[in-house]
């Protein structure tokens, strides 16, 4: 069989050539849909996951209140007034609807029934409920639910009540949420930045560099978290900055390991070799060519690390290493509320709900992201 090559066609007369199907219409059509990129693809999958969407809406709501909540009433987070301590929560329109939690109710026990109509003792309209009537030594006694605000003649209304210094808990709760979120987000971002850089270098260069760098992380990892955080706060004092640092010290190691593993997976690929052959410097190879492959796991890890950071902040507050008063944080509100749990349960109720919703939402959000970026991992 003869193999034709260019030289065989050398003598052809180009003007004799003509197009075969110039007049015919082409049946292929343009794509009417837009191409779907990596992020759009992930976004589509994410939106299918209802619980993650609900979680992200909850996160947005909480962030909204954390930013604007403290401005919604005219009370400062540190306005103390000993004439209105430990007030129960009262939101007038919810109280009218009969929501018992927000009617400003306070329980008084062992009151004489005959005094109930005495308006000097019980101002008009303050009695919400009378129950448990009984006779003790011939005197009729009862327990009362009174409206704290009318009973104590406080003309303001505190939506979430006040604490033991008469500070408005609505303002404190959202300000605390703001501070806890800032601590959590900043520490997570710092830990991801350090972890990604460290992991990239170890993973890309491999060999001796990798070995030394990984031994260093093992040594840091051997220190228990409690001990590291405690020592850190003891050295640097209790400020936002030192708490953030204390949260970062050990947490970046997980990120570094993850990124290192990703680099081991991708650095042998042909496209990396091609780039290397073209003389692309190491830095560009690392950050431009290999690292973007790990963007999914990085984002997922960031979201999943937030609840851990919030937990650690509360933990520090509980053991007395939290922010300095009067600054609130979710952890500080929780530990202050804990002290009066049996008498004023609402003081711990709201921070507890907030921290639970926040942690659950971030976990669900993170799980949704993981499924969206890497569908093969679903349910793991």
């Amino acid at each position, binding site marked *: 069989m003869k193999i034709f090559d260019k030289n065989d066609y050398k003598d052809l007369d180009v003007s004799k050539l003509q197009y075969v199907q110039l007049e015919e219409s082409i049946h292929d059509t343009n794509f009417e849909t837009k191409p779907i990129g990596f992020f759009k693809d992930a976004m589509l999958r994410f939106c299918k996951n209802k*619980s993650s969407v609900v979680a992200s809406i909850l996160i947005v709501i909480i962030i909204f209140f954390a930013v604007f909540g403290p401005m919604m009433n005219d009370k400062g987070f540190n306005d103390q007034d000993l004439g209105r301590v430990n007030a129960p929560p009262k939101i007038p329109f919810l109280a009218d609807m009969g929501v018992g939690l927000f009617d400003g109710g306070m329980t008084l026990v062992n009151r004489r029934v005959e005094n109930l109509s005495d308006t000097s003792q019980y101002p008009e309209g303050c009695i919400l409920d009378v129950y448990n009537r009984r006779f003790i030594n011939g005197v009729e006694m009862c327990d009362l639910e009174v409206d704290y605000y009318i009973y104590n003649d406080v003309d303001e209304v505190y939506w979430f009540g006040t604490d033991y210094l008469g500070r408005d808990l609505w303002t404190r709760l959202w300000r605390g949420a703001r501070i806890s979120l800032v601590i959590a987000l900043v520490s997570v971002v710092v830990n991801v930045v350090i972890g990604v850089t460290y992991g990239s270098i170890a993973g890309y260069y491999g060999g001796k560099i990798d070995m030394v760098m990984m031994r260093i992380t093992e*040594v840091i990892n*051997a*220190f*228990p*978290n*409690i*001990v590291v955080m*405690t*020592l850190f706060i*003891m*050295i640097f004092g209790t400020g936002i900055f030192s708490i953030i640092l204390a949260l970062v010290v050990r947490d970046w190691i997980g990120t570094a390991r993850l990124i290192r593993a990703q680099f*081991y997976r991708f650095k042998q690929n042909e496209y990396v070799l091609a780039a290397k052959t073209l003389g692309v410097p190491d830095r560009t190879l690392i950050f431009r060519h290999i690292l973007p492959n790990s963007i999914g796991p990085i984002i997922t890890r960031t979201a999943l690390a937030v*609840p851990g950071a919030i*937990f650690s902040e*509360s*933990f520090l507050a*509980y*053991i*007395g*290493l939290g922010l300095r008063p009067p600054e609130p944080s979710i952890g500080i509100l*929780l530990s202050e509320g*804990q002290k009066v*749990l*049996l008498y004023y*349960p609402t003081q*711990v109720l709201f921070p*507890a709900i907030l*921290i*639970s919703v926040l*942690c*659950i939402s*971030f*976990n*669900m959000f993170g*799980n949704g992201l993981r499924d969206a970026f890497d569908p093969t991992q679903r*349910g*793991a």
Partner: protein
Amino acid sequence: MTKYIMQRLLATVITMFVILTIGFLVIRLMPGSIFDGYDEMTPEMMQALNAKYNFDKPVIVQYFIYLKNILLHWDWGISLKMNPNVPVWTIVKQKIPVTLYVNFYSLLLSLPLGLLAGIVMALKKNSGIDYGVSFLVVIFISVPSFVFATGLQYFLAYKFGWFPIIYDVNAVGTAKLHSLLLPILALAFSPIARVARYLRAELAETINSEYMLLARTKGLTYTQATIRHGIRNSLVPLMNIIIPMFTTIMGGSLVVERIFAIPGMGGLMIQAINTSDHQVTLATLMFYSFISIITILLVDLSYGIVDPRIRIGGGKAE
């Protein structure tokens, strides 16, 4: 294997030593002296006390004295603020048992429950039960143990009165368990959920493997095949998360102990930090380090024992 164990033990001892050194230096080099706030003290009194506790010597000398006392006499110094002049070890010794009791029981409680939940989820994969339990798992993992502790204390102990509100120090036997059940429960939620989630993932994968198919082909029923072959094989990697979980529980226990007024290591550490009783703080930190390092050691050693497929040789495992 023996060589490996020896290496690991040596590494453990070195790590403890490093932590002790760093902890000692950090605490000694902190600003402020132990006499802050005692303004009525005369300089002579301070000098005498400094000499008694060796605070007048250079830090490095203090360190070696400290180390020598620990190694030769198991003497961790004496408490200066909380219980003045009581040896630290005497204080710590009383607190360790109840802490271990609470932590150990919560781990013990969480294993069967977690395994059960995990197996149910894997077998009923993608059904209503699976989704329901998965949702609970997310809640249990997310909500911090001290929120659970607060809720349990308020509702079960205060409202319903089923349990004592705080720990009864004098209780023994079942009464002790009864009064510690709430803290144990509060700490167990998160491990239960972690075990369940991990086992679900493992088992769901194992069930589809070829040896399960073979077992079915040989005539085993679905239940038999799952219990004999599936679960057994999924339990192997579970070891790696169960032992380190003890350290995590310990961390939560610090706060939960405080909530239920349990006189354990957690309360001791918080009190020591807040009264700046540094000798006690250092001893409690060492206790927590010890627990954590021992668990890491156990995991490393158990790799080879639990799963013979993982051989620990001199080669690099990458």
